[in-house]
């Protein structure tokens, strides 16, 4: 009997054959939460469940990335509360500056192919980049896992993206992620897993870009079959492969040979057009970072475009590496020095300005080109500000010209 990767992962977790549509109770392999929500989850565990400790500390991991380092007395006190709780309960945590939860869990080998990884963060779909079932949940759901070690999930149906061809110069994984949003719409994958096929050649960082944005289309999870580079870097269980005759809820084909650089215009993730439609528009700030595009390869791509040139004096360029590991990689060659010499500023690894709390919050009428994943009104600051979502290549080309620029036109 053929199964989707989601059905295989749940079948493995439960020790019986599971089909899409079933509601099951599972013990997730990993449960992640970060500094923004963990303080409240501790309150639910202690005040509502009336428990002082968690059921299974080995299952949990905390990160400090959303406001890192702390920007106010309140965030500092909340972080101290999380550190004390983690130490008392023997729970692993990653300090401020280590990086974005979704990046760090993959770097540390905590998220593994075939695992069920749940997080108190919507971008937990990112773990599909290594062939895990990753999904986001709210605080009460996560508190319930802390209390019981388990949760209920409805096993989702799967939507297949069948990719053909390879990226053309100036086009990359972010353009594919935005194109999928353009085709499916912001709710086009609601309650579904997205499986991305035809990408055996795609390196890990590109898979992370795609899977982080699965949730932007409403998906419960996004999985790239663990092939190619993933098989070299991780141990892939022998049952975790794509059955050739599997049937999918829907299949969408995308041809990379004809894919142009894409851009999401304010204020919706699926409000996507070819770059040519908006080239020449003015903006004020570039934000290169996030779990979607804050890795070494993203910084490297920007540095290769910018090398030897200066960033336009019309704009400011903020770079927030996804992790300390990625920052070190960018320091090992001339990536970081090129970007800084051109006029970019490097902030602490973490989520940075993505949700408008620090390190690049937007003021009234500010326009930002972000390599992130959300351009909802007011997300990065004042509700009159605007966010365009772009690839690192578009960000870098636009930084030089000071207006939205097609990287192929340089």
């Amino acid at each position, binding site marked *: 009997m053929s199964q989707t990767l989601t059905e295989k992962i749940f079948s493995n977790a439960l020790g019986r054959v599971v089909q899409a549509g079933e509601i099951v109770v599972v013990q997730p392999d990993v449960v992640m939460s970060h500094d923004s929500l963990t303080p409240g989850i501790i309150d639910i565990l202690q005040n509502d469940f009336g428990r002082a400790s968690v059921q299974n500390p080995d299952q949990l991991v905390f990160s400090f990335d959303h406001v890192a380092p702390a920007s106010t007395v309140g965030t500092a006190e909340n972080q101290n509360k999380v550190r004390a709780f983690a130490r008392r309960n023997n729970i692993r945590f990653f300090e401020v500056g280590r990086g974005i939860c979704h990046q760090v869990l993959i770097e540390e080998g905590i998220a593994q192919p075939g695992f069920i990884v749940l997080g108190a963060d919507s971008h937990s779909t990112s773990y599909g980049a290594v062939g895990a079932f990753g999904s986001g949940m*709210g605080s*009460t759901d996560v508190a319930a896992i802390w209390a019981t070690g388990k949760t209920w999930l409805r096993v989702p149906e799967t939507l297949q993206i069948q990719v053909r061809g390879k990226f053309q110069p100036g086009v990359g994984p972010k353009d594919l992620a935005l194109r999928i949003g353009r085709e499916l719409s912001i709710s086009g994958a609601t309650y579904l897993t997205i499986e991305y096929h035809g990408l055996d050649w795609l390196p890990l960082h590109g898979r992370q870009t795609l899977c982080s944005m699965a949730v932007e289309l409403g998906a*419960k999870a996004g999985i790239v079959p663990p092939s190619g580079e993933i098989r070299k870097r991780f141990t892939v269980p022998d049952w975790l492969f794509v059955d050739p005759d599997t049937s999918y809820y829907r299949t969408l084909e995308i041809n990379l040979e004809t894919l142009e650089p894409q851009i999401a215009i304010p204020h919706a993730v699926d409000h996507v057009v070819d770059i040519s439609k908006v080239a020449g528009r003015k903006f004020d700030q570039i934000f290169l970072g996030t779990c979607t595009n804050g890795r070494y390869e993203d910084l490297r791509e920007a540095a290769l475009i910018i090398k030897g040139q200066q960033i336009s004096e019309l704009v400011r360029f903020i770079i927030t590496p996804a992790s300390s590991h990625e920052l070190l990689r960018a320091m090992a060659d001339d990536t970081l020095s090129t970007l800084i010499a051109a006029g970019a500023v490097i902030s602490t690894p973490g989520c940075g300005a993505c949700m408008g709390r620090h390190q690049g919050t937007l003021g009234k009428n500010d326009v930002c080109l972000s390599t992130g994943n959300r351009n909802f009104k007011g997300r990065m600051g004042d509700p009159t500000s605007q966010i365009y979502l772009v690839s690192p290549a578009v960000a870098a080309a636009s930084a030089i010209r000071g207006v939205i620029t097609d990287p192929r036109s340089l």
Partner: protein
Amino acid sequence: MVHIWKFGDDIDTDQIVPGRYAPYMRPNEDVADAAFIEAHPEFNKQAVAGDIIVAGENFGCGSSREYAVLALKRRQIGAIIAKSFARIFYRNAINLGLTLIEAPQVVDRLSDLDFCTLDLEENRLIVRNSILRLPEIPPFAREIINAGGLVAYIQTNGRLPGE
């Protein structure tokens, strides 16, 4: 009689409560005061207990932030009736005992600031002298909402829903 507050499609959680107004960022404030603070200031100032939110497709998309539901729950919103809901928001609402009703056929017949009476016992909405049938809430969700949310469900039953 309560008011209807009508919204469009794809109302994201940044509109319901911007991340800058999270309890983490404002530990000494009530998150209820931040409900639609920037996206719909009239709602923020004037919505009262029992009022109903009516919306189009994909209500609550975006972030997993449960405080978006919590803010509406603390404002004692009677129910949210929408054509569809985003996944995490739907789950969060069930978990906090906030009633969500997926009723695509009803939404277009309701207008902003209509007066109405919501009868959850009989699954109906009485508005402008007409009675609109509402679909039943799926039994799995109904059980959790009736228990008073996920924590109360687990405490009362000694097990998870579905276990």
